[in-house]
Protein backbone atom coordinates (compact mmCIF):
# COMPACT_ATOMS: atom_id res chain seq x y z
CA UNK A 1 0.00 0.00 0.00
CA UNK A 2 1.11 3.53 -0.68
CA UNK A 3 2.22 5.85 2.03
CA UNK A 4 -0.92 7.90 2.46
CA UNK A 5 -0.39 11.29 4.06
CA UNK A 6 -4.09 11.86 4.56
CA UNK A 7 -4.54 8.78 6.63
CA UNK A 8 -1.50 9.64 8.69
CA UNK A 9 -2.88 13.08 9.32
CA UNK A 10 -5.99 11.57 10.77
CA UNK A 11 -3.87 10.09 13.53
CA UNK A 12 -2.51 13.51 14.41
CA UNK A 13 1.00 12.20 13.91
CA UNK A 14 2.20 15.39 12.31
CA UNK A 15 1.48 17.33 15.46
CA UNK A 16 4.20 15.57 17.39
CA UNK A 17 6.21 18.14 19.30
CA UNK A 18 9.03 15.69 19.93
CA UNK A 19 8.78 15.82 23.67
CA UNK A 20 9.56 12.11 24.22
CA UNK A 21 6.92 11.60 26.89
CA UNK A 22 5.73 8.51 25.10
CA UNK A 23 9.15 6.93 25.26
CA UNK A 24 9.21 7.54 28.97
CA UNK A 25 5.91 5.78 29.48
CA UNK A 26 6.53 2.94 27.02
CA UNK A 27 7.08 -0.45 28.67
CA UNK A 28 9.18 -1.65 25.74
CA UNK A 29 11.44 1.39 25.84
CA UNK A 30 12.02 0.78 29.49
CA UNK A 31 13.94 -2.39 28.71
CA UNK A 32 15.14 -1.89 25.17
CA UNK A 33 17.91 0.57 24.56
CA UNK A 34 17.06 1.07 20.91
CA UNK A 35 13.30 1.29 21.07
CA UNK A 36 11.68 4.71 21.09
CA UNK A 37 8.10 5.45 20.01
CA UNK A 38 9.07 9.00 19.25
CA UNK A 39 11.89 7.99 16.96
CA UNK A 40 9.65 5.61 15.11
CA UNK A 41 7.16 8.36 14.59
CA UNK A 42 9.52 11.05 13.48
CA UNK A 43 11.59 8.56 11.55
CA UNK A 44 8.67 7.41 9.51
CA UNK A 45 7.06 10.74 8.82
CA UNK A 46 10.35 12.24 7.78
CA UNK A 47 10.35 9.95 4.85
CA UNK A 48 13.72 11.10 3.78
CA UNK A 49 15.34 9.31 6.71
CA UNK A 50 14.24 5.77 6.33
CA UNK A 51 17.04 4.63 8.60
CA UNK A 52 16.00 6.92 11.41
CA UNK A 53 14.89 3.97 13.48
CA UNK A 54 15.63 0.28 13.53
CA UNK A 55 13.06 -1.27 11.23
CA UNK A 56 12.71 -4.30 13.44
CA UNK A 57 11.58 -2.01 16.24
CA UNK A 58 8.51 -1.03 14.30
CA UNK A 59 7.25 -4.56 14.94
CA UNK A 60 8.09 -4.49 18.63
CA UNK A 61 5.48 -1.91 19.58
CA UNK A 62 2.85 -3.58 21.71
CA UNK A 63 0.12 -1.14 20.65
CA UNK A 64 -0.72 -1.18 24.33
CA UNK A 65 -1.80 2.45 24.14
CA UNK A 66 0.16 3.53 27.16
CA UNK A 67 1.76 6.36 25.17
CA UNK A 68 -1.58 7.63 23.91
CA UNK A 69 -2.55 8.26 27.48
CA UNK A 70 0.39 10.53 28.11
CA UNK A 71 0.77 12.28 24.77
CA UNK A 72 0.30 16.04 25.12
CA UNK A 73 -0.57 16.39 21.44
CA UNK A 74 -3.26 13.77 21.50
CA UNK A 75 -1.67 11.63 18.87
CA UNK A 76 -3.44 8.36 18.21
CA UNK A 77 -0.16 6.57 18.32
CA UNK A 78 -1.40 3.04 17.96
CA UNK A 79 -3.46 3.90 14.90
CA UNK A 80 -0.38 5.48 13.50
CA UNK A 81 1.64 2.30 14.10
CA UNK A 82 -1.08 0.27 12.48
CA UNK A 83 -0.93 2.44 9.39
CA UNK A 84 2.83 2.44 9.11
CA UNK A 85 2.95 -1.31 9.38
CA UNK A 86 0.31 -1.54 6.75
CA UNK A 87 2.32 0.73 4.45
CA UNK A 88 5.46 -1.30 4.96
CA UNK A 89 3.61 -4.41 3.91
CA UNK A 90 4.25 -7.83 5.30
CA UNK A 91 6.75 -8.66 2.56
CA UNK A 92 9.05 -6.08 4.09
CA UNK A 93 8.34 -6.98 7.62
CA UNK A 94 11.43 -7.26 9.72
CA UNK A 95 9.85 -8.58 12.85
CA UNK A 96 10.16 -12.18 13.88
CA UNK A 97 7.02 -14.24 14.18
CA UNK A 98 6.95 -16.08 17.46
CA UNK A 99 6.16 -19.79 17.62
CA UNK A 100 7.54 -20.37 14.16
CA UNK A 101 4.77 -18.32 12.58
CA UNK A 102 2.26 -21.06 13.31
CA UNK A 103 -0.40 -18.67 14.53
CA UNK A 104 -0.06 -16.45 11.53
CA UNK A 105 -0.38 -19.43 9.23
CA UNK A 106 -3.44 -20.62 11.11
CA UNK A 107 -5.27 -17.40 10.54
CA UNK A 108 -4.24 -17.38 6.88
CA UNK A 109 -5.51 -20.88 6.35
CA UNK A 110 -8.82 -19.85 7.86
CA UNK A 111 -9.27 -17.45 4.98
CA UNK A 112 -9.82 -20.31 2.58
CA UNK A 113 -13.51 -20.06 1.88
CA UNK A 114 -14.16 -23.75 1.33
CA UNK A 115 -12.60 -25.08 4.51
CA UNK A 116 -14.81 -26.09 7.39
CA UNK A 117 -13.09 -26.13 10.73
CA UNK A 118 -13.48 -28.81 13.38
CA UNK A 119 -12.96 -26.57 16.34
CA UNK A 120 -15.62 -27.48 18.85
CA UNK A 121 -14.27 -30.82 20.05
CA UNK A 122 -13.18 -29.29 23.35
CA UNK A 123 -16.75 -28.33 24.30
CA UNK A 124 -17.76 -31.51 25.97
CA UNK A 125 -19.67 -32.11 29.15
CA UNK A 126 -23.07 -30.74 29.90
CA UNK A 127 -22.57 -27.39 28.30
CA UNK A 128 -25.55 -26.19 26.40
CA UNK A 129 -25.43 -24.36 23.14
CA UNK A 130 -28.21 -23.77 20.70
CA UNK A 131 -28.93 -22.77 17.13
CA UNK A 132 -31.44 -20.03 17.72
CA UNK A 133 -30.45 -17.98 20.73
CA UNK A 134 -30.13 -14.27 20.27
CA UNK A 135 -26.80 -14.57 22.06
CA UNK A 136 -23.68 -15.74 20.43
CA UNK A 137 -20.49 -16.67 22.19
CA UNK A 138 -17.55 -15.67 20.02
CA UNK A 139 -14.86 -18.02 21.20
CA UNK A 140 -11.77 -16.73 19.45
CA UNK A 141 -8.77 -18.93 18.78
CA UNK A 142 -8.98 -20.86 22.05
CA UNK A 143 -9.05 -24.36 20.49
CA UNK A 144 -5.75 -23.67 18.77
CA UNK A 145 -4.16 -22.21 21.84
CA UNK A 146 -5.22 -25.28 23.73
CA UNK A 147 -3.08 -27.45 21.45
CA UNK A 148 -0.15 -25.10 21.21
CA UNK A 149 0.25 -24.09 24.80
CA UNK A 150 -0.54 -27.18 26.77
CA UNK A 151 3.19 -27.48 27.42
CA UNK A 152 3.17 -24.34 29.49
CA UNK A 153 0.10 -25.42 31.45
CA UNK A 154 -2.42 -23.26 29.69
CA UNK A 155 -5.74 -24.96 29.29
CA UNK A 156 -7.23 -22.48 26.92
CA UNK A 157 -10.52 -24.25 26.33
CA UNK A 158 -11.26 -23.96 30.01
CA UNK A 159 -12.07 -20.33 29.30
CA UNK A 160 -14.59 -21.33 26.68
CA UNK A 161 -16.12 -23.97 28.89
CA UNK A 162 -16.39 -21.61 31.82
CA UNK A 163 -17.88 -18.86 29.72
CA UNK A 164 -20.58 -21.15 28.42
CA UNK A 165 -21.11 -22.51 31.92
CA UNK A 166 -21.65 -18.96 33.16
CA UNK A 167 -24.03 -18.16 30.35
CA UNK A 168 -25.93 -21.38 30.96
CA UNK A 169 -26.15 -20.48 34.61
CA UNK A 170 -28.03 -17.39 33.62
CA UNK A 171 -30.20 -19.47 31.30
CA UNK A 172 -28.55 -18.45 28.14
CA UNK A 173 -27.77 -21.17 25.64
CA UNK A 174 -25.62 -19.23 23.26
CA UNK A 175 -24.96 -19.97 19.64
CA UNK A 176 -21.40 -20.92 18.86
CA UNK A 177 -20.12 -20.84 15.32
CA UNK A 178 -18.63 -24.15 14.29
CA UNK A 179 -16.58 -22.42 11.64
CA UNK A 180 -15.78 -19.22 13.41
CA UNK A 181 -12.74 -17.57 11.87
CA UNK A 182 -10.00 -15.75 13.64
CA UNK A 183 -11.30 -12.24 14.26
CA UNK A 184 -8.33 -10.83 12.38
CA UNK A 185 -7.02 -8.77 15.26
CA UNK A 186 -3.41 -9.84 14.84
CA UNK A 187 -3.41 -9.42 11.09
CA UNK A 188 -4.93 -5.98 11.51
CA UNK A 189 -2.33 -4.79 13.95
CA UNK A 190 0.53 -6.42 12.09
CA UNK A 191 -0.42 -4.49 8.99
CA UNK A 192 -1.81 -7.41 7.01
CA UNK A 193 -5.02 -5.72 6.11
CA UNK A 194 -5.98 -8.16 3.36
CA UNK A 195 -6.14 -11.06 5.75
CA UNK A 196 -8.07 -8.96 8.20
CA UNK A 197 -10.65 -8.10 5.56
CA UNK A 198 -11.15 -11.66 4.41
CA UNK A 199 -11.50 -12.99 7.91
CA UNK A 200 -13.76 -10.17 9.02
CA UNK A 201 -16.11 -10.52 6.10
CA UNK A 202 -16.35 -14.25 6.59
CA UNK A 203 -17.25 -13.76 10.23
CA UNK A 204 -19.79 -11.06 9.59
CA UNK A 205 -21.42 -13.21 7.00
CA UNK A 206 -21.81 -16.06 9.45
CA UNK A 207 -23.00 -13.82 12.25
CA UNK A 208 -25.63 -12.31 9.98
CA UNK A 209 -26.85 -15.76 9.05
CA UNK A 210 -27.08 -16.73 12.71
CA UNK A 211 -29.40 -13.74 13.29
CA UNK A 212 -28.02 -12.91 16.69
CA UNK A 213 -28.45 -9.67 18.54
CA UNK A 214 -25.76 -9.91 21.15
CA UNK A 215 -22.27 -11.26 20.91
CA UNK A 216 -20.29 -12.14 23.97
CA UNK A 217 -16.56 -12.56 23.83
CA UNK A 218 -14.14 -13.78 26.43
CA UNK A 219 -11.22 -12.28 24.61
CA UNK A 220 -10.57 -8.53 24.73
CA UNK A 221 -8.97 -8.63 21.32
CA UNK A 222 -12.00 -10.18 19.66
CA UNK A 223 -14.05 -7.71 21.64
CA UNK A 224 -12.26 -4.67 20.33
CA UNK A 225 -12.05 -6.02 16.81
CA UNK A 226 -15.71 -6.92 16.57
CA UNK A 227 -16.91 -3.82 18.29
CA UNK A 228 -14.66 -1.20 16.76
CA UNK A 229 -12.71 -2.41 13.79
CA UNK A 230 -15.46 -4.38 12.07
CA UNK A 231 -17.93 -1.50 11.83
CA UNK A 232 -15.13 0.85 10.90
CA UNK A 233 -14.13 -1.34 8.00
CA UNK A 234 -17.31 -3.12 7.01
CA UNK A 235 -20.02 -0.68 7.96
CA UNK A 236 -22.78 -0.55 10.51
CA UNK A 237 -23.79 -3.83 12.09
CA UNK A 238 -26.99 -5.19 13.55
CA UNK A 239 -25.58 -6.74 16.67
CA UNK A 240 -24.08 -5.53 19.90
CA UNK A 241 -20.79 -6.80 21.29
CA UNK A 242 -20.04 -7.39 24.97
CA UNK A 243 -17.05 -8.58 26.83
CA UNK A 244 -17.99 -11.25 29.34
CA UNK A 245 -17.00 -8.92 32.19
CA UNK A 246 -19.47 -6.32 30.99
CA UNK A 247 -22.16 -8.92 30.76
CA UNK A 248 -21.32 -10.27 34.20
CA UNK A 249 -21.23 -7.01 36.06
CA UNK A 250 -24.61 -6.09 34.63
CA UNK A 251 -26.36 -9.37 35.25
CA UNK A 252 -24.89 -9.75 38.72
CA UNK A 253 -26.13 -6.31 39.67
CA UNK A 254 -29.49 -7.31 38.29
CA UNK A 255 -29.98 -10.88 39.48
CA UNK A 256 -27.76 -10.86 42.57
CA UNK A 257 -26.73 -14.50 42.35
CA UNK A 258 -24.77 -16.06 45.20
CA UNK A 259 -21.14 -16.37 44.22
CA UNK A 260 -18.85 -18.05 46.69
CA UNK A 261 -15.26 -19.08 46.82
CA UNK A 262 -12.67 -20.02 49.38
CA UNK A 263 -11.18 -16.95 50.82
CA UNK A 264 -8.49 -15.83 48.45
CA UNK A 265 -6.61 -12.73 47.64
CA UNK A 266 -6.66 -11.81 43.97
CA UNK A 267 -5.24 -9.04 41.89
CA UNK A 268 -6.39 -8.00 38.46
CA UNK A 269 -4.37 -7.49 35.30
CA UNK A 270 -6.04 -5.01 32.95
CA UNK A 271 -5.66 -6.37 29.42
CA UNK A 272 -4.65 -3.46 27.20
CA UNK A 273 -7.45 -4.05 24.71
CA UNK A 274 -10.04 -4.12 27.47
CA UNK A 275 -8.76 -1.28 29.57
CA UNK A 276 -7.04 1.44 27.63
CA UNK A 277 -8.51 0.49 24.26
CA UNK A 278 -12.11 0.04 25.39
CA UNK A 279 -12.27 1.74 28.72
CA UNK A 280 -13.46 -1.27 30.62
CA UNK A 281 -11.84 -1.11 34.01
CA UNK A 282 -14.52 -1.43 36.62
CA UNK A 283 -16.73 -4.23 35.29
CA UNK A 284 -14.26 -7.04 35.89
CA UNK A 285 -13.40 -5.63 39.28
CA UNK A 286 -17.03 -5.38 40.26
CA UNK A 287 -17.53 -8.95 39.17
CA UNK A 288 -14.65 -10.12 41.29
CA UNK A 289 -15.80 -8.17 44.30
CA UNK A 290 -19.25 -9.72 44.09
CA UNK A 291 -17.79 -13.13 44.84
CA UNK A 292 -17.79 -13.65 48.55
CA UNK A 293 -14.42 -14.81 49.76
CA UNK A 294 -12.53 -12.86 47.14
CA UNK A 295 -10.36 -10.05 48.35
CA UNK A 296 -9.31 -7.82 45.46
CA UNK A 297 -6.06 -5.92 45.78
CA UNK A 298 -4.41 -3.70 43.21
CA UNK A 299 -0.94 -3.91 41.81
CA UNK A 300 1.43 -0.95 41.69
CA UNK A 301 0.17 -0.03 38.23
CA UNK A 302 -3.50 -0.45 37.56
CA UNK A 303 -6.35 0.93 35.54
CA UNK A 304 -5.01 3.37 32.96
CA UNK A 305 -1.46 2.90 34.11
CA UNK A 306 -1.60 -0.84 33.95
CA UNK A 307 1.25 -2.66 32.20
CA UNK A 308 0.92 -4.88 29.15
CA UNK A 309 1.71 -8.61 29.28
CA UNK A 310 4.64 -8.05 26.99
CA UNK A 311 3.80 -9.40 23.54
CA UNK A 312 1.25 -8.51 20.94
CA UNK A 313 0.24 -10.15 17.71
CA UNK A 314 2.66 -13.05 18.18
CA UNK A 315 5.41 -10.80 17.01
CA UNK A 316 8.89 -10.09 18.31
CA UNK A 317 8.58 -11.86 21.60
CA UNK A 318 11.99 -11.26 23.13
CA UNK A 319 14.15 -10.55 26.06
CA UNK A 320 12.24 -7.30 26.49
CA UNK A 321 8.94 -9.14 26.70
CA UNK A 322 10.33 -11.35 29.39
CA UNK A 323 11.53 -8.37 31.41
CA UNK A 324 8.16 -6.67 31.13
CA UNK A 325 6.53 -9.86 32.34
CA UNK A 326 9.01 -10.40 35.13
CA UNK A 327 8.43 -6.88 36.32
CA UNK A 328 4.69 -7.19 36.16
CA UNK A 329 4.72 -10.53 37.94
CA UNK A 330 6.90 -8.94 40.57
CA UNK A 331 4.19 -6.33 41.12
CA UNK A 332 1.65 -9.08 41.46
CA UNK A 333 3.83 -10.87 43.96
CA UNK A 334 4.19 -7.72 45.99
CA UNK A 335 0.43 -7.58 46.50
CA UNK A 336 0.59 -10.92 48.29
CA UNK A 337 -2.20 -12.24 46.06
CA UNK A 338 -2.86 -15.97 45.59
CA UNK A 339 -4.22 -15.49 42.11
CA UNK A 340 -3.41 -13.14 39.31
CA UNK A 341 -6.68 -12.74 37.46
CA UNK A 342 -6.73 -11.59 33.90
CA UNK A 343 -9.49 -11.38 31.38
CA UNK A 344 -7.48 -12.25 28.30
CA UNK A 345 -6.16 -15.61 27.23
CA UNK A 346 -3.05 -14.09 25.76
CA UNK A 347 -2.11 -12.45 29.05
CA UNK A 348 -2.51 -15.85 30.60
CA UNK A 349 -0.32 -17.52 27.97
CA UNK A 350 2.39 -14.92 28.23
CA UNK A 351 2.50 -14.85 32.00
CA UNK A 352 2.46 -18.62 32.17
CA UNK A 353 5.31 -18.78 29.73
CA UNK A 354 7.32 -16.54 32.02
CA UNK A 355 6.28 -18.53 35.06
CA UNK A 356 7.34 -21.71 33.33
CA UNK A 357 10.83 -20.40 33.46
CA UNK A 358 12.59 -22.42 36.10
CA UNK A 359 14.00 -19.48 38.00
CA UNK A 360 11.19 -16.99 37.76
CA UNK A 361 8.51 -19.62 38.32
CA UNK A 362 9.96 -20.59 41.66
CA UNK A 363 9.85 -17.06 42.96
CA UNK A 364 6.19 -16.47 42.18
CA UNK A 365 3.81 -17.91 44.71
CA UNK A 366 0.60 -17.45 42.73
CA UNK A 367 -1.39 -18.88 39.85
CA UNK A 368 -2.67 -17.09 36.80
CA UNK A 369 -6.36 -17.57 36.13
CA UNK A 370 -8.89 -16.18 33.77
CA UNK A 371 -11.79 -14.14 35.11
CA UNK A 372 -14.22 -16.71 33.72
CA UNK A 373 -12.49 -19.47 35.62
CA UNK A 374 -12.72 -17.63 38.91
CA UNK A 375 -16.37 -16.85 38.30
CA UNK A 376 -17.11 -20.31 36.93
CA UNK A 377 -15.76 -21.89 40.08
CA UNK A 378 -17.77 -19.60 42.31
CA UNK A 379 -21.16 -20.43 40.79
CA UNK A 380 -23.40 -22.18 43.25
Amino acid sequence: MQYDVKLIQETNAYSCIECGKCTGACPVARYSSTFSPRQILTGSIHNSHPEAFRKADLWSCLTCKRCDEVCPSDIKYIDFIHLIRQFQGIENREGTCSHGGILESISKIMMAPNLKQQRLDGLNGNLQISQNSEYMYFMGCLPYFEVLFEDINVEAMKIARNTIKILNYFDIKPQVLSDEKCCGHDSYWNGDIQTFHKLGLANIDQIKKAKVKKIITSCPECYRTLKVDYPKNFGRQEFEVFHISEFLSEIIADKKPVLKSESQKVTFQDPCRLGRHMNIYEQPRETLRSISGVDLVEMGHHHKRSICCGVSGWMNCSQVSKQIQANRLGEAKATGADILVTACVKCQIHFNCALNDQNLGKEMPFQVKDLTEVVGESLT
Partner: protein
Amino acid sequence: MEKKVKETTKQKTKSKPQFEPRIVVFACNWCSYPAADAAGINRLQYPANVRIIRVMCMGRVDPGFVLKALVMGADGVLVSGCHFEDCHYSFGARKAAEQYKKLEKIVHMLGLEKERIRQEFISAAEFPKFAKVVREMVEQIKKLGPSPLERGALYKDQKLESEIIEEVAPVTP
Protein backbone atom coordinates in the same frame (compact mmCIF):
# COMPACT_ATOMS: atom_id res chain seq x y z
CA MET B 1 17.23 -36.92 -29.79
CA GLU B 2 17.02 -33.63 -27.98
CA LYS B 3 14.55 -32.26 -30.47
CA LYS B 4 12.33 -35.23 -30.04
CA VAL B 5 12.16 -34.70 -26.36
CA LYS B 6 11.16 -31.11 -26.89
CA GLU B 7 8.41 -31.99 -29.29
CA THR B 8 6.90 -34.54 -27.01
CA THR B 9 7.14 -31.99 -24.26
CA LYS B 10 4.91 -29.65 -26.16
CA GLN B 11 2.38 -32.27 -27.08
CA LYS B 12 2.15 -33.49 -23.58
CA THR B 13 1.67 -30.12 -21.99
CA LYS B 14 -1.19 -29.46 -24.33
CA SER B 15 -3.04 -32.65 -23.64
CA LYS B 16 -2.60 -32.62 -19.88
CA PRO B 17 -5.15 -30.59 -18.04
CA GLN B 18 -4.97 -33.19 -15.27
CA PHE B 19 -4.30 -32.04 -11.72
CA GLU B 20 -0.68 -32.54 -10.71
CA PRO B 21 -0.24 -32.13 -6.97
CA ARG B 22 2.69 -30.18 -5.61
CA ILE B 23 4.16 -31.92 -2.60
CA VAL B 24 6.91 -30.71 -0.33
CA VAL B 25 9.10 -33.34 1.29
CA PHE B 26 11.31 -32.59 4.25
CA ALA B 27 13.91 -35.32 4.55
CA CYS B 28 16.64 -35.68 7.11
CA ASN B 29 20.22 -35.90 6.03
CA TRP B 30 20.93 -39.27 7.58
CA CYS B 31 18.06 -41.54 6.74
CA SER B 32 15.32 -40.36 4.48
CA TYR B 33 17.38 -38.22 2.15
CA PRO B 34 19.77 -41.12 1.53
CA ALA B 35 16.73 -43.37 1.12
CA ALA B 36 15.56 -41.08 -1.65
CA ASP B 37 19.03 -41.27 -3.16
CA ALA B 38 18.97 -45.05 -2.99
CA ALA B 39 15.59 -45.09 -4.67
CA GLY B 40 17.36 -43.29 -7.49
CA ILE B 41 20.32 -45.63 -7.54
CA ASN B 42 17.91 -48.53 -7.86
CA ARG B 43 15.89 -46.65 -10.46
CA LEU B 44 12.65 -47.06 -8.57
CA GLN B 45 10.15 -44.92 -10.40
CA TYR B 46 7.78 -42.59 -8.62
CA PRO B 47 5.70 -39.62 -9.72
CA ALA B 48 7.50 -36.32 -10.23
CA ASN B 49 5.29 -34.33 -7.89
CA VAL B 50 7.62 -34.09 -4.95
CA ARG B 51 10.40 -31.64 -4.18
CA ILE B 52 12.74 -32.71 -1.43
CA ILE B 53 14.14 -30.20 1.02
CA ARG B 54 17.07 -31.48 3.01
CA VAL B 55 17.37 -30.76 6.71
CA MET B 56 19.92 -32.18 9.12
CA CYS B 57 17.32 -33.89 11.27
CA MET B 58 13.59 -34.25 11.32
CA GLY B 59 13.75 -32.37 14.59
CA ARG B 60 14.52 -29.29 12.50
CA VAL B 61 11.15 -29.39 10.77
CA ASP B 62 9.24 -26.73 12.56
CA PRO B 63 5.47 -27.27 12.33
CA GLY B 64 5.56 -23.67 11.20
CA PHE B 65 7.30 -24.72 7.98
CA VAL B 66 4.64 -27.26 7.23
CA LEU B 67 1.84 -24.81 7.82
CA LYS B 68 3.62 -22.19 5.75
CA ALA B 69 3.98 -24.66 2.91
CA LEU B 70 0.25 -25.30 3.13
CA VAL B 71 -0.52 -21.60 3.19
CA MET B 72 1.63 -21.19 0.13
CA GLY B 73 -0.58 -23.72 -1.57
CA ALA B 74 1.29 -26.99 -1.28
CA ASP B 75 -1.11 -29.83 -1.97
CA GLY B 76 0.70 -32.02 0.53
CA VAL B 77 3.66 -32.08 2.86
CA LEU B 78 5.67 -35.14 3.82
CA VAL B 79 7.98 -35.01 6.80
CA SER B 80 10.36 -37.90 6.77
CA GLY B 81 13.21 -38.93 9.00
CA CYS B 82 14.86 -41.77 10.80
CA HIS B 83 13.26 -44.34 13.02
CA PHE B 84 13.57 -43.20 16.62
CA GLU B 85 16.47 -45.42 17.46
CA ASP B 86 18.35 -44.50 14.28
CA CYS B 87 18.11 -40.74 14.54
CA HIS B 88 21.61 -39.39 14.13
CA TYR B 89 20.99 -37.07 17.03
CA SER B 90 19.10 -39.66 19.03
CA PHE B 91 16.40 -37.30 20.27
CA GLY B 92 15.52 -35.37 17.11
CA ALA B 93 13.11 -37.86 15.64
CA ARG B 94 11.35 -38.37 18.94
CA LYS B 95 10.90 -34.64 19.38
CA ALA B 96 9.74 -34.32 15.81
CA ALA B 97 7.05 -36.89 16.49
CA GLU B 98 5.88 -34.88 19.49
CA GLN B 99 5.70 -31.71 17.44
CA TYR B 100 3.97 -33.53 14.65
CA LYS B 101 1.16 -34.61 16.95
CA LYS B 102 0.36 -30.99 17.63
CA LEU B 103 0.56 -30.20 13.96
CA GLU B 104 -1.85 -33.00 13.15
CA LYS B 105 -4.37 -31.69 15.65
CA ILE B 106 -4.14 -28.20 14.24
CA VAL B 107 -4.46 -29.31 10.65
CA HIS B 108 -7.47 -31.36 11.62
CA MET B 109 -9.06 -28.42 13.42
CA LEU B 110 -8.49 -26.19 10.46
CA GLY B 111 -10.57 -28.58 8.42
CA LEU B 112 -7.83 -29.67 6.08
CA GLU B 113 -7.86 -33.31 5.03
CA LYS B 114 -5.52 -35.30 7.21
CA GLU B 115 -3.99 -36.97 4.16
CA ARG B 116 -2.38 -33.71 3.15
CA ILE B 117 0.30 -34.05 5.74
CA ARG B 118 2.18 -37.16 6.61
CA GLN B 119 5.06 -38.14 8.81
CA GLU B 120 7.14 -41.16 7.96
CA PHE B 121 10.14 -42.87 9.45
CA ILE B 122 12.21 -44.20 6.60
CA SER B 123 15.70 -45.52 7.12
CA ALA B 124 18.40 -45.30 4.51
CA ALA B 125 17.86 -48.96 3.69
CA GLU B 126 14.14 -48.59 3.19
CA PHE B 127 14.28 -46.87 -0.17
CA PRO B 128 11.39 -48.88 -1.60
CA LYS B 129 9.31 -47.53 1.24
CA PHE B 130 10.28 -44.01 0.24
CA ALA B 131 9.10 -44.60 -3.31
CA LYS B 132 5.98 -46.32 -2.04
CA VAL B 133 5.09 -43.52 0.34
CA VAL B 134 5.50 -40.95 -2.42
CA ARG B 135 3.38 -42.99 -4.79
CA GLU B 136 0.65 -43.41 -2.20
CA MET B 137 0.69 -39.81 -1.23
CA VAL B 138 0.47 -38.56 -4.81
CA GLU B 139 -2.40 -40.90 -5.47
CA GLN B 140 -4.29 -39.94 -2.34
CA ILE B 141 -3.87 -36.27 -3.00
CA LYS B 142 -4.93 -36.64 -6.59
CA LYS B 143 -8.13 -38.08 -5.23
CA LEU B 144 -8.54 -35.20 -2.82
CA GLY B 145 -7.98 -32.66 -5.54
CA PRO B 146 -6.08 -29.38 -5.33
CA SER B 147 -5.46 -27.79 -1.99
CA PRO B 148 -8.32 -25.58 -0.88
CA LEU B 149 -5.71 -22.93 -0.22
CA GLU B 150 -5.70 -21.64 -3.76
CA ARG B 151 -2.15 -22.19 -4.81
CA GLY B 152 -0.71 -19.65 -2.46
CA ALA B 153 -3.05 -16.88 -3.47
CA LEU B 154 -3.73 -16.29 0.20
CA TYR B 155 -0.10 -15.78 0.95
CA LYS B 156 0.58 -13.18 -1.63
CA ASP B 157 -0.23 -9.55 -1.39
CA GLN B 158 -3.19 -9.23 -3.72
CA LYS B 159 -5.45 -6.34 -4.45
CA LEU B 160 -8.33 -5.73 -2.14
CA GLU B 161 -11.64 -6.53 -3.63
CA SER B 162 -13.03 -3.20 -4.65
CA GLU B 163 -16.44 -3.69 -3.03
CA ILE B 164 -14.86 -3.90 0.36
CA ILE B 165 -13.36 -0.49 0.07
CA GLU B 166 -16.64 0.98 -1.11
CA GLU B 167 -18.44 -0.51 1.80
CA VAL B 168 -16.21 1.23 4.27
CA ALA B 169 -18.13 3.84 6.16
CA PRO B 170 -16.33 5.53 9.03
CA VAL B 171 -17.96 4.87 12.35
CA THR B 172 -16.48 6.33 15.46
CA PRO B 173 -16.17 3.96 18.37
